[in-house]
């Protein structure tokens, strides 16, 4: 029994790390820029296919793709910011939401045209192997994806905490017009922040693609998971997003070990409702806990 619990906990932690990176970009973009980027999961899906194509065509290991995805999706994020976000970021939030929803539908449609709705998997050399650590059996692919996720989260946290640009981004998230008035170019920083959010989505997509089967339309499922992590953890705070990801991962593996998998959703969403009611807060107050 103890062995089983140890395996459940270890598995939950690794899954939680992956969920945390799925949510962290969404959390930062929403918390700091106030943009509800529902297209976030579409970029996660594209990240999975990015790794899939690099692996299939060029034999590039997903571990390398994880790091390649970051600058590629960062650049994509900057382009989306310049072409789309600058037109809607100061408009009422519903306009931005509609624009991001349109982008999500567009990206999913492009994904379906390019790759059909067939489910894909990335089968690297370590995909079906496991490591025995004492009594705990761990799938190597989850250990690798979890470690990559941890590297990304720690790097992002360090960037926001210790660099001048990161601190200015946090300042902008707290008070955009005060930041402007002291000389911060909020357009430039917003572009960087949005780029980082999409870069996180791309890399998260690679990590998720290493562990789970995927198709263009699984992005909706990931959007739900990412929002769950974000709402549990609050917005714009990397540390809280990590903790929320770990909670979700542990609940998933814990519940799935003893009940049918469908109960995982029931438990998670009941927990979400209880937390929101207990804290008596909505999204706007969740923002203030972050950044």
């Amino acid at each position, binding site marked *: 029994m103890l062995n089983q619990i140890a395996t459940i906990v270890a598995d939950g932690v690794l899954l939680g790390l992956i969920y945390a990176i799925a949510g962290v970009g969404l959390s930062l973009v929403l918390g700091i820029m106030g943009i509800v980027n529902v297209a976030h999961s579409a970029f996660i899906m594209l990240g999975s296919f990015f790794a899939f194509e690099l692996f299939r065509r060029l034999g590039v290991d997903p571990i390398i793709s994880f790091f390649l995805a970051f600058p590629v999706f960062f650049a994509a994020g900057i382009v989306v910011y310049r072409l789309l976000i600058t037109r809607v970021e100061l408009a009422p939030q519903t306009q931005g939401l509609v624009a991001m929803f349109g982008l999500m539908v567009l990206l999913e449609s492009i994904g379906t045209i390019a790759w059909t709705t067939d489910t894909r998997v990335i089968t690297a050399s370590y995909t079906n192997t496991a490591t025995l650590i004492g009594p705990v059996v761990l799938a190597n692919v989850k250990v690798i994806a979890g470690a990559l996720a941890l590297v990304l989260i720690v790097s992002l946290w360090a960037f926001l905490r210790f660099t001048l640009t990161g601190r200015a981004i946090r300042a902008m998230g707290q008070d955009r017009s*005060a930041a402007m008035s002291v000389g911060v170019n909020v357009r430039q920083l917003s572009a960087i922040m949005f780029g980082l959010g999409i870069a996180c989505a791309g890399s998260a997509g690679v990590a998720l693609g290493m562990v789970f089967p995927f198709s263009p339309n699984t992005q909706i499922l990931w959007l739900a998971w990412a929002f769950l992590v974000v709402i549990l953890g609050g917005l714009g705070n990397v540390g809280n997003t990590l903790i929320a990801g770990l909670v979700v991962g542990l609940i998933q593996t814990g519940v799935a070990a003893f009940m049918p998998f469908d109960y995982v959703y029931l438990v998670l969403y009941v927990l979400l409702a209880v937390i929101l009611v207990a804290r008596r807060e909505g999204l706007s107050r969740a923002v203030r806990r972050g950044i």
Partner: protein
Amino acid sequence: MSGADAAPLLAIDAVTKKFGGVVALNAVSFQLEANRVVGLIGPNGSGKTTLLNVINGVVDADGGEVRLGDMKIGGKRPSDLAANGLSRTFQTTRVFQTLTTMQNLFVPLLHRQALERSKATERANELLAFVGLERHAGHTASELSGGQQRLLEFARALVTHPRLILMDEPFAGVHPEIKKVLIRCIRETVQKEGASFLIVSHEVPDLVNMSDFMVCLVEGRVAASGLPTAVVHDEKVIEGYLGRN
């Protein structure tokens, strides 16, 4: 404050701003020269903060023109204006709450040249000592009292050596000791750094003492401008703002 041959530091010429049917600023004109303190007074709703927002680039004027030195302000972003030597503080203190006192002072240096950034710590320490917050350098801004946050916001406004600092109600709700520190710092900044201030305040006696020039707005118009002692005795100012008692 006009009449100099060189362009004034700030020239406001017939600035008009409407919000719907409400005329917030109606052909407001005055100038501010370098190395001066200008007091801006007037009743609530007279357009003082709106004027600061227009000068700061937060709000675009509907008519007229504002120039900072040779640069026309219309259409410029606040960050562009900050890069050209304009800085400000706000009616309600707006420091970055989760950053430390020191980090608050570094944020304005983000887009500055490497040389200026390399001296950031030196400049920040100098300013913290200047306003008396050196012991709080490592504290997050949210840990500071309201008055200390006011001083931090003032120090943050000075970090980039601005030519002109706009201050909106800097003395409102602060302890008299903090007010003394602020007044001393404003005077020393004018003397030592050659900066100018445009200060909005209802603390008229203090403003009269520290200003070289004063402007009174009433219902969006300049009711009077000139030497502070003359402005506070102007009939229009007494009638529109100060009252006879």
